[in-house]
Every structure is written in structure tokens, then in C-alpha cells.
């Protein structure tokens, strides 16, 4: 312990440069670990096409034109006659440059259809995270501050009830209450933010809320537990004794140190939110990635399916890296503040 403090003190000569170096090393190390993972998961994704016993060339040509010679020719053009590893490498080197191939059926480039639909899911997912942080953060903090009170006990019940309700059921409840019952908000369609922020928000607030509830419950539960632990620490009493206002102690001393585990949950769940947006899309019939995936799966449009999986899993990995880096910083700076 003493040694650590000594090195900290020695390093404090140029804290900013040192911190930058640590950050660079951490991000670099993270990428070093993540690249093989991405390579492996993209290979799993690509092999899906090889697993399928469907014959894309025959499907594209249609029943009449699918003579063996024509099928063989098209297979050659599509590169489907090469060994799996060669195909994978071709696909991956194209994908890195942003070319995910074209759909077998619509002939639209996969990257174009994905980038058309990604804003829908991203708006829902980001708004859901914001809502979850506000709802969960407030609820967790209030419950921890008023520990054992009616709000605290009620929150426990609500959280365990919410954890049994999947997002699509919550979505349906919201539709029934706000769209069918009260006619307050639209229950379907998507409006791009370019056509006005108000309509955009009105169309995504219900799907986002449906998605946010579960995460909010997780955050509230976690924040309550860790905040209760932190509020019992001596340094909180110390800060109060020194005459700092309670609000300042709560936000700058307690919440900052207690938010770590809740942030971990947030970081783990945010990528899943993108996939969870599929549920919200289905209930509110929004034209997002989920709809694209479902249509592609039904018509066995393998390039679209592969491209979607690659994009989503890359997203998961990148967000995880970002969250882990941020977390490492938070813990580091709070350590520094403590000693």
C-alpha cells in the first residue's frame, strides 16, 4: 500500500501526461484483446451462410433459368465456389472498407439498407438509455437516501415486477394506455428528426420507454445497494462534519463513488439495447434493423443477415471498450481523490 502511494506521489509530477499515457495504454490493450474477439465472432457470423443448405444462385435465377451451368456460373461470380476461409477473408476485407455486399433479392447494397435503418434504432436506444439513467438514477438515489422508507420498499417490489416483464409486453401496455386509451401519442410509424424534433420525439418516446424500464430497474437496484454502502463510510460522515452541505456530499462524494457498478450495468446493457430495439420496433411497427433482419431471415437473404450481425456485434464490442475505459478512469480518479 505504502509503495503504491509512493509511486503515485512520484508520478504526480506530470499528472496530465501520465494520465494520457495510461489512457492510451489502456485503450491500446483493450483493442489488442478485442480484435481477436471480433475476428472470431465475425467468423461465426460468416459461417452461418455456409451452414445454410439453401442454394442462393438457384433462388436468384428463379426456377426456369436455374440450369446447372447458370448456377455454377453465378456461384463463381458470387465467389461461393471458393473454400470457406477464402470466402470469409474476401468478405471481411471488403467489410472493413464498408462494403458488406449486396442483397440477393433487392440488389441494394447491405451497407445502404443498414445505414438507412440504423438511425431508428439508435434514436430509440439512446433515448432509452437517457430515460433509464434519469429514472433509475433518481429512484435509486431517493431509495438509498430514505432507506427503509415507503419509497424504498415500493421500489423493490416494482423492480422485481419489471424484471419479469419483457420489453415487448411493456410496449404493448404503453400502447394500450397512451395510444389506444388516451390517444395521447402515436403508436406506430417513424419520423426522422429532420422533419421536426417534436414529431420525432413523439414517435420514439413510447418505444424508448418500453426499452428503458428494465434497464432503469437494474440501475435503480444497483445504485441503491452501492449508495447505501457508500453513505455508511467514514469519509461521508467526515465531509458532513466539516460542514459541507448534504447535497454536495451526496453528489460529489457519495454518488461519484457509488456509480461504478451501475455504470457497469449500463455499459453491458447498452449494446443489448440496440438488439432490444427490435422488440420495440415490432410492437410499434417501426422500420428499423429488426424489420430488416426479419425480412431477410424469411427470404434467406444471407448477405443482409451477415452484414447486420457483423455491424451489431462490432457495435457491442466498441461500446464495451468505451465503457470499460471510462470506468477505469472513474475508479482511478476516485482513488486519487481518496488518498
Amino acid at each position, binding site marked *: 500500500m505504502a509503495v503504491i502511494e509512493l509511486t503515485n506521489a512520484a508520478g504526480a509530477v506530470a499528472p496530465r501526461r501520465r494520465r494520457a499515457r495510461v489512457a492510451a495504454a489502456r485503450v491500446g490493450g483493450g483493442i489488442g484483446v478485442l480484435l481477436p474477439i471480433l475476428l472470431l465472432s465475425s467468423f461465426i457470423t460468416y459461417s452461418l451462410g455456409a451452414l445454410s443448405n439453401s442454394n442462393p444462385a438457384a433462388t436468384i435465377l428463379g426456377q426456369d433459368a436455374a440450369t446447372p451451368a447458370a448456377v455454377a456460373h453465378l456461384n463463381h461470380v458470387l465467389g461461393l465456389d471458393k473454400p470457406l476461409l477464402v470466402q470469409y477473408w474476401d468478405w471481411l476485407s471488403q467489410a472493413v472498407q464498408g462494403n458488406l455486399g449486396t442483397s440477393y433479392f433487392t440488389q441494394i447494397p447491405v451497407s445502404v439498407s443498414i445505414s438507412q435503418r440504423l438511425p431508428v434504432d439508435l434514436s430509440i436506444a439512446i433515448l432509452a438509455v437517457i430515460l433509464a439513467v434519469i429514472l433509475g438514477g433518481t429512484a435509486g438515489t431517493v431509495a438509498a437516501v430514505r432507506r427503509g422508507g415507503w419509497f424504498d420498499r415500493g421500489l423493490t417490489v416494482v423492480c422485481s415486477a419489471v*424484471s419479469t416483464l419483457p420489453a415487448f409486453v411493456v410496449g*404493448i401496455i404503453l400502447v394500450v394506455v397512451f395510444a389506444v386509451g388516451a390517444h395521447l401519442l402515436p403508436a406506430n410509424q417513424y419520423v426522422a428528426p429532420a422533419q421536426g424534433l417534436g414529431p420525432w420525439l413523439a414517435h420514439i418516446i413510447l418505444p424508448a420507454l418500453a426499452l428503458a424500464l428494465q434497464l432503469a430497474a437494474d440501475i435503480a437496484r444497483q445504485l441503491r445497494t452501492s449508495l447505501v454502502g457508500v453513505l455508511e463510510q467514514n469519509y461521508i460522515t467526515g465531509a458532513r462534519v466539516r460542514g459541507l452541505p448534504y447535497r454536495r456530499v451526496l453528489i460529489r462524494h457519495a454518488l461519484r463513488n457509488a456509480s461504478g*457498478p451501475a455504470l457497469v450495468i449500463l455499459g453491458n446493457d447498452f449494446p443489448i439495447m440496440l438488439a432490444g430495439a427490435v422488440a420495440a420496433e415490432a410492437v410499434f411497427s417501426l422500420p428499423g434493423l429488426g424489420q430488416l*433482419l426479419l425480412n431477410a431471415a424469411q427470404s434467406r437473404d444471407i448477405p443482409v443477415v451477415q452484414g447486420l*450481425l457483423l455491424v451489431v456485434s462490432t457495435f457491442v464490442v466498441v461500446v464495451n471498450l468505451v465503457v470499460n475505459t471510462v470506468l477505469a478512469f472513474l475508479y482511478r480518479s476516485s482513488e486519487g481523490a481518496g488518498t
Partner: protein
Amino acid sequence: MSRRSRASGGSVLRLPSARIAVVILAAILLLAFFGSALAPQNPLGIDSNALFEGPSKAHWLGTDYLGRDVLSRLMAGTRLSVLTALEAVGIGLVVGAPLGVATVFLGRTFDFIANRVADALMTLPSIFFAVAVTAALGNGLVQAMFPVGILFIPNFFRLTRAATLDLARAQYVEAAELLGGSKLHVIRVHVVRKVFPTIAVATATACGAALLSVSFLTFLGIGVQPPTPTWGGVLSSDLNYLNLAPWAPFIPGALIAVTVGALNALADAYRDKTGPGTLLLPEADPVSKTHATLEAADARQPAA
């Protein structure tokens, strides 16, 4: 050990929440096996004179848009939903748990590879992956739940590995080895039995998650042809007629929620009774939920 575990098993059932959960789950299992036979009416029987009826003596849970009896459809749909959920959990448990124990004893290379494969699998969101696999393997619920099971493997693997790692370092395991117990004997008697409660709780939680996945997949229309009744299917058909019958989706929704809630309550009761510290679970220690990449990054460069 065996006496203690029996005692703790008994005391779990002394909790009222656990008892209610067990009764609910027994009823669901009964429906899974005999649901179609017990259904009061034909789940596929169409009655154009009784559309969107509310609960009545003839139709306890009302009728749907074709006048079919909702209670019968839910009862008949239980089997497919429950069995495919068990399929997914079974795959995860049978592959993941033994690997988690084995990896601790098989050396660092194996451990490293297994962990990286688990990392890679964890980047694939389960519903996305499940739908994608149906594109490759064909549209069936058994096919769709297979990838969900594959994605359960890293969960079981991680939990079992963490619990085993803890135990493998315990002094009594060392003592057993020093007393001349063979490796297999030590693993079987001193490690696996102790890891068992962790796996049991993880299995209950995974069953809940799998049921949610099945419901969602059938809700999306993956894996089943329209007349076949499933929990999610009943829910999605109600969705098109919200203006006519706004209460209808709450019945299958409540059924799903109650079943998942019962599984979670059972897991919670078992966890509480076995006591904190004996079990290594994500809820007990949220930081262990951190993506393994952080752990790996930390291992590479020690803190401070």
C-alpha cells in the same frame, strides 16, 4: 455435505415465496405435458359468432379475433414454449457447466482459448443471432432456440468457472490432494458438489430468460406456422386488434410474467437461503458482470 445440502433444500421451501413459485412452476409443467389434453375446447376451433368476447362461463379467458378460446390456446401452446426453452437451457448447461469446471484443471492454454471463445459469443445479441440462424437453418422454433442455447453457454461457463476457481484454491481441496486423493476424486467430491448450488440458481434464472426469448421469437412469428398456438403468438395476434379488445394482450403477458417471476423468485429464495458468499452470482457482485475484456485488459497491465 450431502446432509447439509438436503437441509438447505428443505429450508428453501419453508419460504412462502418459494412455495408459491414451486406450485406455479408445477402447474406450468403439468400444462406442458397435458395442456392439449386438458384444454376445455379445441384451441384451433373457429367460432365466427363469438369474436373478441370477454371472459365468460363458456370462455374463461375470452376469445380472440377468430373466436378461438384463449384459455385453450394458451394451454395448448405451453408445451412448445416450455420445451424449447428447456432445450436452450439444456444446451447451455450441458456444454457450459462441465467446461467451466474442466477449464480450471486443464491448464492455461485451454482456459485462454475457452475464455476468448466465450468472449466472442457474448458479442452476439441473442435475438439477433437466433433470427439470423433461422435464416441459415430454416424457420423452426427448435432451430431458433438452438442459437439461444449456444449463447447461454458462456453464461454457464463463466459462473461455473468462477465458482470452481474459488474452490480449487480452498485449503480443504489442497488437503484432499495432499491426503492422496486422485484428481478426479477431488474434483467430483470436493469441487463439483460445492459448485452445484451456483449452477442450480443460474439454471433457474436461465429458464426465465429462455422463456422470454421463446415468447419473443414466437411473438415475432419466428419458428411457428400461424394456427399453431404459442404464448407469444397469442400475444402478437392480439396486437392487431387493440382498438377492439385492448385488454386481450394482458392475459398472455401476465402468464409469461408470472412464470418468469416464479423462476426468479425460486432462484432468489435459493440464493438467500444458501447465503451470500457461498454463491457466486452476477446479482451478488455486479462488477463480476463486467465484460471479460476488462479483466483481460487489467491482467495485462496491473493497476497502479
